[in-house]
Every structure is written in C-alpha cells, then in structure tokens.
C-alpha cells in the first residue's frame, strides 16, 4: 500500500509539471480560439533565454529572470500583433498552421540568440528525497511519515510553484475586470468589441501571460532535464492533459495534468511489466484517446451551448 502511495504521489507531482505546460495552451485557446502549437517552442525560448542571459551576458539570476520575462512579453505581444491579428476571422485551421510556422521561427530565434549548446539550469532547488533535504537543513524528520520521506524536494517545490501560479490565474480570470473581459472575448469577440472591450489590449495581455507561464514551465523543466532542444517536446506531453481536462479550462489543465501524471506512473509500475516496460511514453495518449470517445469536451471543458 505504501508503495502504491509513493508511486501515486510521485505521479501527481510529475503531473503538475504537465499542468504547467497545458496552462499556456489553455490561456491562448480560451481567449483567441487558437491552438498555439508554438507553446513548446516558447517554453524552450524562455528557458534558453534565462540560462543564456546568465552564461553569455553574465546576468545574476534575478536579472536573468526579469530579462527573460520581458523578452517573453515582447515575443507574445509581437506574435499577436504581427502573426495572428492579420488573420482575425480566418478559419481555426489556418491559425493553427500559422502557429506551426511560428514554432520553427521561435526555435530558430532562440538558437540564433543563444546557440545550440545544452546548458544546465540551476535554480538552487535540491533534487533529492525530502528526508535528505530536511536532514541537511538540520531538521528532524521523525515526524514525517515514511511515504512522504521519499518525495523529491524538487517535485514538491515545482508543485507548490505551479499550484500558486494556477490559483493566481484562476482568481485573475474569475474576479477581476480584465479577467472577466478575457472570458467575454473568449465567448464572442464581436460582442466584446461591441461593448467596448479593446480586443488588441486583451490579446496582448493573454499572450504576455502565456509567455510568463511558458517561462515558469521552462525554468521547472529546464532545471529538471537541462535546457536543450528536447524541451520543445514538452508541449506534446500537454496534449493528453488538454484532451482530458478540456482545451478551455484552467482547472481542467490542473486536474488533467494530475490525472495523467498519476496514471502514467501507476501504469508504468503495475501494467508496464506485461508489456516489457516503457509504456509511460505512450500510455497517456491512449488513455486520452479512450477518454475522448466518452467526453469530447473534456472533464471541465465548456459545453457548446446550442440553444438560441
């Protein structure tokens, strides 16, 4: 039983990392109906800028953080202005194709600016079981239940960061004036325009927030796996999360991420041996596909309201 719990907790924590990436997709999809294929590239760009600014420009961590945030905002706003705005009212498939093009551009730009080297990303968060961290800090770990002792400190902190970010976003969406306007734009942008909501400003805000989320995801994933080109594939991990949680739901991205994370780890441990292992890579997709048959709008996705 405690082994099961251990696997489950490990899975949930890994899942939050997926949520973080999925969140970037959800934001853009919600506000502009675009499936932003470039989200993975943005994660890569953000992480590479963060380390690049330290390595090449000699910035301290905090300055690198601010610098990459500003760059992400500029990238987001420019994308909206130059790439997507001219295509307003075009069919979703055209917009999707454009974001594929954007992916290559952003990947190329990132490497042009910072080179193709693989960098380590050091945030100073220990990557070890929590019991060890606590002992190192001179704390007594007797009170900590055994199941929890094995939890990785890094995973835990990543989870806390992601959780905070999500809570902040949810509050922003739900109760602020701009958040409400954002949801209005997502629902009907003609009507939003008619009541005087400035679409351009709203879209610029959304892309900036998505850039910020990409930065956080890039830092977490980069610290975990090193900053390398493979970061762009992190985006593919978000896909089953989105199918499960719904493309337009912030809570869906969170819960979807948790479920996929947990399922993956549990499947690997309990079903994996029958397949000769390695099912973690594809299991999430199969689970998502099966789920798609049952509930196409996702767990929390907004139902299409058909009545007139």
């Amino acid at each position, binding site marked *: 039983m405690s082994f099961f719990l251990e696997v489950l907790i490990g899975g949930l924590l890994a899942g939050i990392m997926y949520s973080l990436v999925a969140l970037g997709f959800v934001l853009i999809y919600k506000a502009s109906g675009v499936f932003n294929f470039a989200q993975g590239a943005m994660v890569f760009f953000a992480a590479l800028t963060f380390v690049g600014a330290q390595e090449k420009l000699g910035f301290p961590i905090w300055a690198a953080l601010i610098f990459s945030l500003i760059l992400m905002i500029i990238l987001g706003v420019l994308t909206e202005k130059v790439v997507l705005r001219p295509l*307003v*009212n075009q069919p979703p498939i055209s917009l999707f194709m454009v974001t594929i093009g954007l992916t290559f551009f952003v990947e190329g730009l990132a490497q042009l600016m910072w080179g193709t080297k693989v960098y380590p990303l050091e945030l100073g968060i220990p990557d070890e079981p929590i019991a060890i961290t606590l002992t190192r800090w001179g704390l007594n770990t007797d009170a900590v239940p055994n199941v929890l002792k094995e939890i990785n400190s890094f995973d835990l902190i990543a989870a806390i960061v992601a959780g905070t970010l999500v809570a902040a976003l949810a509050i922003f969406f739900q109760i602020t*004036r701009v958040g*409400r*306007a954002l*949801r*209005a734009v*997502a*629902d*009907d*942008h*003609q*009507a*939003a*325009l*008619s*009541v*005087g*909501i*400035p679409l351009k400003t709203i879209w610029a805000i959304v892309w900036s927030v998505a850039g910020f989320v990409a930065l956080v995801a890039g830092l977490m994933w980069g610290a975990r796996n090193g900053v390398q080109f493979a970061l762009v594939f992190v985006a593919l991990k978000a896909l089953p999360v989105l199918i499960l949680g719904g493309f337009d739901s912030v809570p869906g991205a969170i819960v979807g991420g948790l479920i996929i994370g947990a399922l993956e780890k549990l499947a690997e441990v309990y079903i994996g041996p029958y397949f000769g292992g390695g099912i973690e890579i594809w299991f999430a997709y199969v689970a998502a596909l099966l789920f798609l048959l049952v509930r196409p709008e996702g767990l929390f996705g*907004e139902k299409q*309201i058909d*009545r*007139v």
Partner: protein
Amino acid sequence: MGSKDNFVKALLNINNIEVIYDHVILVLKGISLHVNEGQIVALLGANGAGKTTTLKAVSNLLQTERGEVTKGFIEYKGDRIEKLTPWSLVKKGVIQVMEGRHCFQHLSVEENLLTGAFTRGNQKKAIKNDLEKVYNYFPRLKERRRSQAGYTSGGEQQMTAIGRALMANPSMILLDEPSMGLAPQLVEEIFEIVKTLNQKEKVSFLLAEQNTNIALGYADYGYILENGRIVMDGSANELSDNSDVKEFYLGIASAGRKSYRDGKHYRRRKRWLA
C-alpha cells in the same frame, strides 16, 4: 430630408455615406439620416436592405467584417467619428446592441452586465448603482443573475443585451432588431422598456427593425431603407399613414387590389427607388 431645422441639434448625423465590404461589395449607396437628442428613430426595411450595415458603420463594428465607409461622414455631437475604434465610441456614449443579442454564453447574466461597464474602469460605486438600476428596469434579470446567459430564454437574453449596453452609461444606443424571434407580448415589453429608458434615462435610440408596425408605434421618426438607399422618411405618424408603407411594410392592402398576385405585380412595377 424632412427636418433640416433640427439639424443643429442632431446628436447623430450620418451624411451621405457609402459602405463597401471586401473592397468590392457596395452595400450602402449614399445614406443620410440623423437622430436628435432624446429621439427614438426607426430604420426600417426588408432583409438585406442595409440596416445592420448602417448601425455598424456608426459603431464601427464594420472594421472586423472587412467593411469600410468609403464616402461621406458621420458626426456625433458635432465630432467626426468614422475613424474611431468601437471602444472610444463606447466611451463617448455610443453603443450597439447587436442583432441576435450576442450575450456571452458562458458568463452569468450579472457578469454579462458588468462587461458593459468595461470602459468605465474601476468606478466601483457608480457601476454598482447602475447595476441596481438595470435590475430595476429588468427585474427578471435580477432573478436570473447567477444563471449562465446561454441557458436563459430569448427574451431574457435580449434584456441582458440591452442591460449590458446600459451599463456603459450611453447617451445613444444602436439597437438592432430587438424583436427578432420573440413572442409578440415580449416584443411589446421590450419596446415599453426602450420607451422608458428614452424618457427617464434620456437615451436616444437608432433602432433597426423589420417589424415596422411595432417600431413605428414607439419611434418618433423613421427612415425606410431599400437596397442600400433611403427611399422615404418622415415622422412615425406620417409613415404609418402612408399608403405605400401600409401596403409594403404593414401588410395592409389598399382597396381594389385584394389578391396576393395583384399585389406582387404592383410591387414589381413600383419600386421604391424614388
């Protein structure tokens, strides 16, 4: 035009505008009309006559539909407005209630209303007062305030759309086909509220309607649009009494032509192109 003497006081003055969609489709072919302060002006005409296009030319929602005012000008309170963005127009007090209501389906009724106050920034107190005011005019919305707008009835959605516009604190509402798809009794109810808003809140209305009968019942003045041109205008009473209006728009046949076919024949012969 019938009332040149009122020209100075015109709140909205549309002067000989031409509107083209997609750079080639000429839809409005020189339209002039005006709305005086405190008036309800009806814009009448059949499907495709150009009523919606006229309203969107004023609110500049044409922008997103690849439509453009290519000739003429539009003035509001004496200032040219055809280059302004929809949000600066809303700030100035001109707001459109779109055809088909266009409520934000997944937002609650109250959230819908609050979006109308977006351009007013964070004047919390005033906005709260106005919310109560809207609930006073539309008690039904207060009952449904927490419901998702997409699940409310057509009448409630129309009320939400009008209430949402009121939240912008406008002096002029461009109201597009409020009667569309509503039961006669509800239509009556909506128009009563329009009249009340006009009198109590001093909101002027430019009202596009296919339902000529009800529109002339509540409007002060009317324009009849056909094929992108104004073919007739006059006070609501004049128009209601006009035999051509009666025949074509109110469905009251004049004596002597009883059969539908005769009417059709007559209609073909006598177009409105004055």
